[in-house]
């Protein structure tokens, strides 16, 4: 007969009966509880009644739910493996990341390169212009020096030319002077001023006055030598002050002076 009066159980091992039924006790507790069951009839009766209820539930579960198909939820374990593999840092991934340039980094690098090239060109042009300016200065100095030397040469040439002209005018005979004067009178009307300079220098002594030709020639030569010397000095001074490449203006000045002298001589 089953005893229904199990509610009055007051044993200290009452809670251990459940653990013993479901086998969730330590070995020491299990042995201790088994020793207690031999001595305590109430606990043994409780264990029998609770074990009956447990066994009836297990039988009902097997009868009702064992035939049901097991519902298996598909679980993708490979996803976890992939995640683990993706988290792993290998030298190959590092190498790929090293050679994969994102667009932002590439744009920044390109802009930096352009800035560097622009700065280099500006600096190069700055120093290049300075060198050109220095070269131009040296060239100008050389040109001015060459112009001074040329002007000195021109003055020397003018002096030599004047001397030659003097000597030629002195060595000319009155007949030659007459012929030259006849030529120069015609050339004086036609030829330009520069050409007139030479002819007038030579036709200083007009041959129309044969009697006084020699005296006139001498006085004219003296005057001309003085004038030439003055002209040469003035031209030398001018050339020393302002360098000139040609003696064109010197001859022009000379022609003016000589023309004035000839006009004075004609008046006399």
């Amino acid at each position: 007969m089953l005893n229904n009066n199990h509610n009055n159980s007051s044993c200290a091992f009452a809670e251990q009966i459940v653990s013993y039924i479901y086998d969730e006790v330590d070995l020491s507790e299990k042995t201790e509880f088994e020793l207690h069951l031999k001595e305590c009839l109430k606990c043994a009766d409780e264990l029998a009644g609770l074990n009956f209820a447990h066994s009836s539930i297990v039988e009902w579960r097997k009868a009702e739910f064992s035939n049901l198909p097991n519902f298996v939820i598909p679980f993708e374990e490979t996803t976890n493996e992939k995640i683990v593999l993706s988290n792993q840092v290998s030298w190959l991934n590092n190498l790929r990341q090293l050679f994969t340039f994102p667009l932002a980094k590439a744009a920044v690098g390109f802009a930096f390169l352009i800035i560097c090239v622009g700065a280099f060109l500006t600096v190069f042009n700055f120093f290049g212009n300075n060198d050109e300016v220095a070269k131009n200065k040296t060239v100008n100095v050389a040109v001015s020096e060459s112009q001074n030397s040329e002007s000195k040469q021109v003055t020397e040439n003018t002096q030599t030319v004047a001397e030659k002209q003097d000597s030629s005018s002195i060595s000319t005979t009155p007949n030659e002077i007459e012929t030259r004067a006849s030529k120069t009178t015609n050339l004086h009307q036609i030829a330009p001023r520069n050409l007139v300079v030479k002819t007038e220098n030579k036709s200083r002594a007009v041959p129309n006055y044969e009697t006084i030709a020699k005296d006139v020639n001498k006085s004219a030569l003296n005057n001309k030598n003085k004038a030439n010397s003055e002209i040469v000095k003035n031209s030398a001074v001018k050339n020393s002050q302002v360098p000139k490449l040609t003696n064109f203006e010197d001859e022009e000045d000379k022609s003016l002076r000589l023309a004035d002298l000839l006009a004075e001589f004609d008046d006399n």
Partner: protein
Amino acid sequence: MIRQAVSSLPDDLRQIIVMKEFEDMTFQEISDTLGMPLSTVKSRLYTALKQLRSKLESKPLEIV
């Protein structure tokens, strides 16, 4: 008969019986899941089994 006995239990006791008998959970897992002490889980299961025993033993007696 056992179905009727289990369904007649209170909700808190039936919940413990289902988790222990059908879900095969340990006492510690039940206490962690329900957020209650381990001793409470054991006492409730003890109470549920005693009520089932009484219900299962009372019906045959009633029949008899």
